[in-house]
């Protein structure tokens, strides 16, 4: 940079007058640009992508062997194998881990980096978070597909509800995972420290995942835990996903899960936007 550039300022440097002030990009264009950026960052390291996508298959393998050996046929719904019981639940619970990593990613993004610059650009700040949630959701989508394919190849899994039921279960799970991602985005925007987020994340993660009907039916849980599991929104999502995939009576659980998912997402989005607007304090 101390090369032989001593003559007139190069084109592009402010020797040129400040042209007519451009309008900042429209919101749709901003969201598109931000989402593409975020997707590129989420997929920047192929090793991270590979292992995170393989993760649900490992869960399927281990949980089906550990709990499947205990899960007496008699506690499962009639004619339903443990894989058929478990896999639709994993479609939902897989998102819990992913959403925590979305939160951690946001904190890292906020520490210096481009997010700092976004705050002084003519930009709609909430879109930064929406872009983040969409990018992480694409990764979850890949995990769900890998889970279904892995279940089929390893255990010969077939959805009782047919392709339609399976697709419906995938769509519902995706919506619920989007809501879960927003929980962690809100926490991340509020806490702004990876260490704090990770330690709190455990207290959000494990109860959501295990105090639910994901791995065994609620009826076999101890009374207090069954009570917790009944109010756990993950339980409703799991039940709904299971209903759809099994092609059983897609009863009251599906609307309940949709409402819980949408409501949770809305509340968490608003909290996240508020928290994210808070100026960085040094």
């Amino acid at each position, binding site marked *: 940079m101390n090369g032989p550039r001593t003559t007139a300022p190069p084109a*592009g*440097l402010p020797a040129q007058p400040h042209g007519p002030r451009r309008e900042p990009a429209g919101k749709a264009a901003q969201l598109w640009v931000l989402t593409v950026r975020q997707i590129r960052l989420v997929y920047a390291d192929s090793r991270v992508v590979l292992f995170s996508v393989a993760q649900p298959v490992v869960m399927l393998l281990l949980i089906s062997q550990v709990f499947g050996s205990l899960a007496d046929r008699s506690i499962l719904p009639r004619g339903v194998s443990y894989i058929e019981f478990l896999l639709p639940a994993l479609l939902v619970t897989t998102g819990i881990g992913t959403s925590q990593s979305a939160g951690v990613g946001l904190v890292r993004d906020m520490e210096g980096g481009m997010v700092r610059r976004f705050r002084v650009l003519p930009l709609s700040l909430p879109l930064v978070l929406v872009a983040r949630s969409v990018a992480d959701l694409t990764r979850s989508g890949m995990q769900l597909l890998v889970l279904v394919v892995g279940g089929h190849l390893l255990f010969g899994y077939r959805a009782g509800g047919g392709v339609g039921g399976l697709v419906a279960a995938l769509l519902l799970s995706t919506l619920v995972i989007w809501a879960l991602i927003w929980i962690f985005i809100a926490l991340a925007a509020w806490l702004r420290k990876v260490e704090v987020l990770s330690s709190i994340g455990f207290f959000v993660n494990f109860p959501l995942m295990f105090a639910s009907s994901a791995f065994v039916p609620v009826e076999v849980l101890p009374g207090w835990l069954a009570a917790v599991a009944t109010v756990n929104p993950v339980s409703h999502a799991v039940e709904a996903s299971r209903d759809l995939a099994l092609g059983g009576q897609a009863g009251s659980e599906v609307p309940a899960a949709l409402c819980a998912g949408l409501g949770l997402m809305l509340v968490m989005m608003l909290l996240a936007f508020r928290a994210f607007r808070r100026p960085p304090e040094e």
Partner: protein
Amino acid sequence: MAADGVIHVVGLHKRFGAVQALRGVDLTVAQGEVMGLLGHNGAGKTTLVNILSTLMPPTAGTASVAGFDVAGRPEEVRRRIGVTGQFASLDEQLSGHDNLVLVARLCGASRARAGRRADELLEAFGLGDAGRRKAVTYSGGMRRRLDLALGLVGRPEILFLDEPTVGLDPPSRIGLWEMVEELTRGGTTVLLTTQYLEEADRLADRITVLEAGRVLVSGTAAELKSRAGGGFISFRLEPHGDPAVAAEALRLAGLPPGAETARGELTVPAEGSADLATVIRVLDTVGQNVTEIRHSEPSLDDVYLALTGAWSRDPVPAGPPRRAGVAKARRHTADPRETV
């Protein structure tokens, strides 16, 4: 707006919990002016820039940039400013080119125009060859240049440079200075914070010294220097000379020297180069020959130390500091402007 300045700050306060970062700052920067904001760590420089660049609202007082209140109309302010901070604000996982395209597109450029703008800026900042490499592979100096380029993507009218050369090696620092000088020739208004007097002296039209959240003094470099008096005459005697004899003779002549420095120099506060002749004549009279003698104008270091010293000891800033202690401070100056 023109009458009030492009940047206009009145009675600005900022409190972080128990810490008062700003305690009533007033500041006006005119169109096309380069204002140097000088101060120690913790003086409030970065807080002031953060408020002016809409990163955080003030606790009290008002600040406007380009005629828009920073707290009330931040989106209007953001359309007109560029910011380069102490911490490079960029995506390490993206290339320099992609960083620039990202910001250009967010500022409303089409894909093609964003690409052209990115190439222009990469070329201008000597990053043409590294443009397609991930920024994580860049050296500190390259990151700073990319960061500055990112601040310029939207052709800002007002540029905030927060300690732009901290941690850079001397060649990179000089290179960055040259770039800022090119920018200011184009009429961009610049607010530059720095701890380096040399940097403020070189780049700024006017300098404001901040201390503990208050404006200590404001003026051109020449005005500030005039407050530190006429400078100093430093000399060294021949090896067999007697410093005590020389000092006594000068004291009788009304030019009392300070204590001998570690380098064996004696320093006399002086009004101007006329005193140089007096010193030589007096020393000659008492048979003391000098091997080395020079007259140094006061540097901003002297001003800074004199003013901040006066501030911390005495609420009323003292007059021009004709004091021996200043001689010691001179040794820290990187670039004394010498006349002999």
